[in-house]
């Protein structure tokens, strides 16, 4: 592309096109539900158009979650395309000499890297999305946790891992509990300490995760430069997206095999579980105090039930073994009986044979005597 070409990314034409797109979607929406009007003027009309479409996804049916995922990624792609268009506009405005566009690329990327610290960019949002959904699957969303995180966000410097306020709070929370409600007080003190532990561990993981995001951007810059050297080019927005995904996966995979990852990941999970367990203990105490079975009690029942099932299984096996053995005994007894009968028959036959043979001998002797006398 010549430097003299107009490059109207993120200009009226771009916006106009988005608006046309929104209008098409709105027309379609109106056909499906008469009287539909967009609630407000959209910031990114393409994304807004998908928001409208979202309302028509059926709430039931097997495809619903996948349709939602596809729409979410569609929105993410549109948002990223907007970002890319701005980025291309800036690049295009500079002279095409190698140094100039590379310097501009570098400075644009530095800005995105900074945005990782605040989460204020579509690339940063893309980077954080898997982590967010992963945390949500672990149940990292109790109300108290959200409000604590909000408090941390608002409290100046609390997001710093080295902030002395943590030590100060820990000291205060270590004050021995006194009086009638001592146990409850201890439980709550412990819970607050664990909440702080989790916040720190989570922050530690986020920091490492964002650093890897920045490394992914470094890789992206390096790959683009390499492509330039090789005379290769990227021809589509999707091509840029795919290149970014490659860089993100490479950087993440490298991180995932480090000792640091193992440590921060383990610490984050363990501190969250400790916190959830403490939370459950508080609820259990409340349940017990009003005479309702606690989760611990339910757990004990389940454990005992399984132990009994194992014992029953063992007894059934022994019974089967003993039934097999008794069957074997019966068979042996039957065989013995048969053997005895056979023996009896054999000895009877022997007796008969002996008696027959004796009679024959006597007859022979008698016949011999007769002959001699004759």
């Amino acid at each position: 592309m010549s430097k003299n070409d107009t490059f109207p990314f993120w200009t009226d034409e771009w916006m106009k096109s988005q608006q046309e797109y929104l209008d098409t979607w709105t027309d379609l929406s109106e056909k499906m539900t008469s009287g539909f009007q967009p609630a407000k003027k959209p910031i990114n009309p393409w994304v807004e158009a998908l928001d409208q479409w979202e309302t028509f996804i059926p709430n039931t049916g097997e495809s619903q979650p996948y349709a939602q995922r596809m729409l979410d990624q569609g929105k993410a792609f549109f948002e990223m395309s907007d970002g890319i268009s701005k980025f291309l506009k800036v690049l295009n405005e500079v002279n095409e000499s190698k140094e100039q566009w590379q310097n501009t690329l570098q400075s644009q990327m530095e800005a995105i890297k900074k945005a990782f610290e605040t989460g204020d960019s579509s690339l940063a949002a893309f980077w954080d999305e898997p982590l967010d959904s992963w945390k949500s699957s672990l149940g990292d969303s109790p109300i108290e946790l959200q409000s604590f995180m909000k408090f941390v966000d608002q409290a100046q410097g609390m997001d710093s891992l080295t902030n002395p306020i943590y030590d100060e709070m820990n000291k205060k929370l270590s004050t021995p509990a006194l009086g009638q409600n001592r146990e409850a007080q201890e439980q709550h003190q412990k819970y607050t300490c664990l909440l702080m532990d989790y916040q720190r561990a989570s922050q530690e993981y986020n920091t490492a995760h964002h650093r890897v995001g920045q490394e992914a951007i470094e890789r992206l810059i390096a790959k683009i430069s390499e492509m330039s050297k090789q005379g290769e080019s990227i021809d589509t927005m999707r091509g840029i997206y795919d290149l970014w995904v490659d860089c993100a996966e490479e950087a993440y995979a490298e991180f995932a095999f480090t000792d640091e990852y193992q440590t921060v990941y383990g610490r984050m999970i363990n501190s969250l579980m400790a916190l959830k367990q403490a939370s459950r203990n508080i609820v259990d105490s409340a349940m017990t105090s009003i005479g309702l079975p606690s989760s611990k009690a339910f757990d004990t029942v389940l454990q005992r039930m399984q132990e009994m099932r194992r014992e029953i299984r063992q007894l059934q096996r022994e019974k089967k073994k003993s039934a097999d053995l008794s069957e074997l005994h019966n068979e042996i007894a039957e065989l013995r009986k048969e053997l005895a009968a056979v023996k009896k028959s054999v000895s009877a036959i022997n007796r008969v044979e002996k008696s027959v043979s004796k009679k024959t001998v006597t007859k022979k002797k008698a016949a011999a005597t007769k002959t001699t006398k004759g």
Partner: protein
Amino acid sequence: MFPFNITPDSALKEIQEFGNKLGEGMQTLTELGEIPVGASEFEVVYHEDKLTLNHYKPLVKNPNKTPILIIYALVNRPYMTDLQKGRSLIEGLLKNGQDVYLIDWGYPDAADRYLSLDDYINGYIDNCVDNVCDRAGVDKLNILGVCQGGTLSLCYTSLHTHKVNNLITTVTPVDFHTKDDQLSHMVRNVDIDLLVDTVGNISGDMMNTTFLSLKPFRLNGQKYLDMVNLLGDEDSALNFMRMEKWIFDSPDQAGQAYKEFISQFYQQNKLIKSEVMVGEHRIDLKNITVPVLNIFAKDDHLVPVAASKALEKYVGTDDYTPLEFPGGHIGIFVSGKAQKMIPPTVAEWLTERS
């Protein structure tokens, strides 16, 4: 050279085309309805708690007299082995003259929280083996273990060699500490006792996100952009959706068994040290003296090739056959290549040893 060859026109065209495809895809998705899975006819011949033992209707007149029992992983659902006509390991085995049984573990719930590996191996699996042998009138059967089910099959065969004629393991982890085992690396510092004591059973959602986190940007993002291109017609949409359904159809994991598996296998790598304890029994792979066919996938990102290949070094048999499949962890069951390669090879290998 300036590396971006994107003009405003081409960018707008691309975005609009993407938007149109997305719209068409949404239309296809909302019209799909229920996503059918399963290709082969079967009857349930035994059930115990949530487990069912399925016997598949033979497709040849005189199938192998020694039946083959498929032991699937506790993770995900076993219909991966019989996803649809033409993409089914079971269908392939039936066509190649095998008499096929499969254990479907069902969906454990809170009542199954304390099911241990001993309950699975010496309880459920052993009962199924006895049942299959009784029905077939044989003393021994063939076992085909899938992934974690392969590891359970190794444990079972080590303890009950007299009931197993031949053993086939597919994408089965044996050495859990190979350098490229990301899952193992991930869980090494997690306090599994605390985790299970806290949450009880491990939810299917947690399992899913753990697997997705191995390639988070491809599996959470890029895949769904690719999906837009796959929804043009109903058949390709259904193929994609069947896989999606399977991936996210994740049963919860019984807490006790999960704890024992992660701790003994993934964290302490005890299987190759002959130190795994299942109930009161020690697992020694040297006890496995029956013929073993070990199938692994070259591009497996869940169970690396080295993790499976290690079996050769530790198993006791003199009749060991390795087989590398040129594909991934799932492709080994559902790809077109797999249909041509895996069932005939398994059948031939079994025939040579029957």
